[in-house]
């Protein structure tokens, strides 16, 4: 088996999010989610719609980083910002985003930490999280799995809707609410525990359940046996390294660019 980095492992794990989605818009926000969506389109689900991260639909994923002068992606349509709302309100989208905080319900925050009127730390604002999470599938990427991100209480500003019935209109689950997976530097989580409790779906090589739980501010569902996150294949590594990220920007995602198997065998 080839050596691979943690970033490469996470790209491959995150690509799985879009496997069974059919013809939806795959929006990977940020470097690693974008590479994951791109890999999904090249391998698991070629039917995915994808943009050039500006306003064009592309028939092939656009590599990240500098490209040859004059090299244009293969365009297949136009997706200006206003149309993105038309599309997402119809539900045919699956985004992967990087929240600042996530709570036990899968509620997410990208707005601020602290109090609304005078936050300790201001980030972007709720952006499209409220509309995204009540209309279409969403997954998340967390590069620093810790109790600062996976908070014990509710997130400071609930921007992304989660499985918290107390907040749902009339106590009924919104039809469009569909949280899928959370890929972190330690594990892949899903919402398949009892009542959508967040569950450890797979552990990255060399990581124990206890380590994931210690770095999470709420109890995680623990299946009887937890598989290891599947290592990248040679084909996947080739696509990531040669086609999608030829300048190795992914080396900047995790501090020190650690190997994928932290037990030291990789």
């Amino acid at each position, binding site marked *: 088996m080839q050596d691979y980095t943690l970033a490469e492992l996470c790209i491959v794990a995150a690509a799985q999010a879009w496997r069974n989605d059919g013809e939806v818009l795959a929006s990977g926000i940020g470097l690693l989610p974008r590479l994951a969506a791109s890999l999904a389109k090249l391998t698991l689900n070629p039917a995915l719609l994808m943009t050039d991260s500006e306003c064009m639909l592309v028939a092939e994923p656009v590599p990240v980083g500098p490209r040859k002068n004059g090299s244009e992606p293969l365009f297949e349509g136009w997706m200006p910002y206003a149309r993105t709302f038309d599309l997402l309100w119809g539900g045919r989208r699956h985004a992967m985003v990087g929240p600042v905080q996530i709570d036990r319900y899968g509620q997410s925050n990208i707005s*601020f930490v602290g109090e609304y*009127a*005078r936050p300790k730390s201001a*980030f972007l*604002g709720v952006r*499209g999280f*409220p*509309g995204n999470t009540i209309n279409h599938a969403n997954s998340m990427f967390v590069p620093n799995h810790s109790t600062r991100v996976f908070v014990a209480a509710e997130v400071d500003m609930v*921007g992304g809707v989660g499985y918290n019935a107390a907040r749902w209109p009339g106590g009924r689950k919104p039809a469009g*609410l569909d949280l899928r997976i959370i890929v972190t530097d330690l594990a892949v989580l899903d919402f398949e525990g009892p009542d959508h409790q967040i569950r450890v779906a797979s552990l990255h090589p060399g990581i124990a359940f206890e380590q994931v739980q210690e770095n999470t501010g709420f109890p995680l569902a623990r299946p009887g046996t937890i598989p290891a996150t599947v290592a990248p294949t040679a084909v996947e590594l080739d696509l990531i390294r040669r086609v999608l990220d030829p300048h190795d920007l992914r080396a900047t995602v995790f501090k020190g660019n650690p190997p994928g198997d932290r037990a030291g065998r990789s």
Partner: protein
Amino acid sequence: MLDKRMTPAEIVGRLEDGMTIGIGGWATRRKPMALVREILRSPLKDLTVVSYGGPDVGLLCAAGKIRRLVFGFVSLDVLPLDAHFRAARQAGAIECTEYDEGMVLLGLRAAGMRLPFLPTRSGLATDVLRVNPSLRTIRSPYEDGEELLAVPAIELDAALLHVTEADQLGNSVILSPDPFFDDLFARAARACYLTCERLLPTDEICSREKARYNPFERSVVTGVAHVPYGAHPTASTPGYGIDVAHLKEYSDATGDAWPGYCAKYVDLADHAAYLAAVGGAARLDAIQAPVF
């Protein structure tokens, strides 16, 4: 014949303290920055600003012009966070109406349609309702009976937009690849002011080929100012890209560094002086578009 030509100073002279001002473009694209700098040079204060926010919001925050901000995000895109917006918000210096981006869209659309609200699911089950206690829900009057969020109309006293080409009648075209929400801002406003890269005779503004780039009718336009490079340091493609180097300098100019930035780029006689300060037209023409 109609002649809506104005100078940036004349446009800003029409604005008043306490007004609700919509700013077009998106983050670091096609922001009417020359008008924003003109506002910084004016005594205007207590503005409510509605924006898909970028350095327009940051500059107005840094200068203390904003009382309330209606927004979904503020970002410099290539630099994820705007330092001036962050500083103002963390100091409690601005009041916030924080909405989902789609709610901003619907609020503007409702105003343009002269409706009190438009319904949506976006915002339900989130803290957008907690932090905006005046928001109301409405039940569908049909069999489904679904509870929906009623996004109130966002009525603007003025909209400020930057377009590629315009004529003196207020006809315009946006040749950049994304028109964003400028049409919604234009219709939501009692007065809409444009700056343009090129001011052209009417027979050069619109052809069958260019007609699709005409975002709204001239009847919603109050004034037009000819301001080449008026979106700098944001992009106005196909003319020029985002000036990332300038955005970094702007971003670093917080606290004690702010007066220096102002002296160098804001407190100037006019837009020509600004262009000279940022390196001149030739430099701006040569800026490569950032790769996304």
